[in-house]
């Protein structure tokens, strides 16, 4: 077991095209933990995911994001990836002409190159692992010869994200609404993928609007993001609360705070 790592968001403020979206987010997570980040639409969940990964469209105006006390806000997305961050995208883009295999190979090569721990990319190992993970996610090997996300169904795109996660084995994975648009069988497959990596060496943030996926990926902590802040946090019991009562109470209770 590797040493425990800490991921910490401190008073994070961020704008999109000049408009403030995140207004002081605080969150701490360690490897081995699973967090659920929930909240009504428009509360800033996807913005937070993109800011963590370093999307250039978002401007951080205040605060820090620390990985083991290193502020990552000045790092490019690839450098954050090399530190062990991973974002499963809500809307993965298509890259025409680049096969899944070629893409994953390059991603792993750059991971090994950056790690400088002496471990080198091994083609045979890569292919075996790829085959194993593809089967694990109930995909066909033909899938890996297709162009990245091009013409993929919604479910295939989400499985593709999980496949990448399985191959890259991140320290901290953020799953941005990976459950959205999926039927229950697909949610089960995606959850199976996440659970495969869950363990002492990975911290996971499951961003979701619904509780369905949390029946399969059990969170240790649940946070509610509303109007750009984490307004409340708790244990797994909060999932049931939200399931029963929806977000209305959140809006009532914390909407006033924001307005005040």
């Amino acid at each position, binding site marked *: 077991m590797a040493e425990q790592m800490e991921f910490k968001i401190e008073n994070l403020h961020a704008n999109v095209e000049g408009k403030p979206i995140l207004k002081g987010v605080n969150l701490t997570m360690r490897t081995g933990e699973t967090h659920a980040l929930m909240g009504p639409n428009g509360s800033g969940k996807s913005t937070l995911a993109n800011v963590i*990964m370093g*999307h250039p469209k978002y401007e951080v105006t205040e605060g820090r994001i620390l990985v083991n006390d290193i502020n990552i806000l000045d790092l490019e*997305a*690839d450098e954050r990836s090399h530190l062990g961050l991973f974002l499963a995208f809500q809307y993965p883009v298509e*890259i025409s*002409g680049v096969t899944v295999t070629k893409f994953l190979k*390059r991603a792993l090569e*750059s*991971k090994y190159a950056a790690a400088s721990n002496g471990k080198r990319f091994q083609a045979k190992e890569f292919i075996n692992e790829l085959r194993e993970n593809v089967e694990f996610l109930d995909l066909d090997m033909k899938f890996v010869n297709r162009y990245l996300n091009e013409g993929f169904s919604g479910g295939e795109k989400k499985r593709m994200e999980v496949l990448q996660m399985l191959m*890259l084995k991140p320290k901290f994975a953020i799953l941005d609404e990976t459950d959205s648009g999926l039927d229950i069988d697909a949610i089960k497959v995606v959850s199976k993928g996440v659970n495969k990596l869950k363990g002492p060496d990975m911290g996971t943030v499951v961003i979701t609007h619904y509780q369905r996926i949390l029946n399969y990926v059990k969170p240790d902590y649940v946070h509610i993001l509303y109007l750009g802040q984490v307004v409340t946090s708790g244990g797994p019991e909060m999932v049931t609360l939200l399931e029963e009562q929806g977000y209305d109470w959140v809006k009532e209770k914390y909407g006033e705070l924001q307005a005040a």
Partner: protein
Amino acid sequence: MNNQEFNIGIATDTYKFGFSDPEKSVFKTQKGLSETVVRQISERKNEPQWMTDFRLRSLKMFYKKNMPNWGADLSKINFDNIYYYVKPVDAQGRSWDDVPSDIKNTFDRLGIPEAERKFLAGVGAQYDSEVVYHNIKEELAAKGVIFVDPETAVRDYPDLVKEYFGTIIPPADNKFAALNSAVWSGGSFVYVPKGVKVDIPLQAYFRINAQNMGQFERTLIIADEGSFVHYVEGCTAPIYTTDSLHSAVVEIIAKKDARVRYSTIQNWSGDVYNLVTKRAVAYEGATVEWVDGNIGSKITMKYPSVYLMGRGAHGEVLSIAFAGKGQHQDTGGKVVHVASDTSSVITSKSISKDGGRAGYRGLMKVHAGLHNIKSHVVCDALILDEKSRSDTYPYIEIDSNDVSIEHEARVSKISEEQLFYLMSRGLNEHEASMMIVNGFIEPLIKQLPMEYAVELNRLIELEMEGSVG
């Protein structure tokens, strides 16, 4: 001298030869163009009167024709400041030290063998592929394939030359075809007899010397009935030249049921005007395919064309253009359907970067009274930054009703979302944009012969780094 000695000794020997006494062996016509210059060229080549006359008629045509003003900016070409003929051996009176270091570096990175580097850089005049490719030549000869430079063809196969030379692209076609017809030097002449399939690609540097690397080269390919040949022009290494105008003419005749594929990837240095006319005729059941990659040059204007003359004929043009800083690639393809039951495909992919300009210019023409015509035109442009530009000029002229034409044109930019996606997986920005560019041209690369595809990929990688001059 046995083969081994030859291979080892070749580069240095020729280098010494070329360098030790360059002045004595140089023959140049005077700068600029005149009847005297054209006559001198013809004399140097000991040409028969009919070819001298052809040249002189072409020169008149050149003077008469206007400069094409519908495409790239050609106003800076100074016809008076160009040597139209430098005797090939002596054109190489340049030392390896004079070759710019960026070009040497590119050779290194492309892994071009030492001997070929000097040849390509215009240093090793006597790079004698005769020996290296001796077996290939014997095989070809046994099948009756003629593969010589056009000077030899004029001398040894005058009837064939007279019958076809200048018939597909007459001197009057355009100003630069007229220029080439007046001053042509080097190139290739290929005749493939009936039913003969040439199973290895014919490459210009299989041949004896550097003449084919001339600036006004002339190529004529005649594929007789039922034959097949793949001709590969030049090579993908950067071609170094001291003069700034390259104007070639390539004519192809594919007779009944013949198939000809012609591949070029030009990588002229960044000061060259590359103005080339390429045209093929495909008779009944014949297929002609142009694969045309344009990476180098300052300005390129080139639109390989196919005339579909008989039932069942098929034409294809695959065009790839990369326009970097200071470059304008005005390229594309033309297909003219003259007979019923004919089909064509034009696929064009262009990339522009660092202020480069890439244009697709194409013609799809269907003559009157024809049936069952199918054509598919796809042009995709990828623009890598705000400074760069892409244009599309698709001309379509259709005079028949029974025609099925699909035309797709797409212009895309590398999106921030794509870069971010790839970078979030650990690729740096350069690797990410390279991957997108590679993906963009992938469908075309797949259709190239293996070694060619590898070289093209490497070249584009070099271009993306901006390290090729």
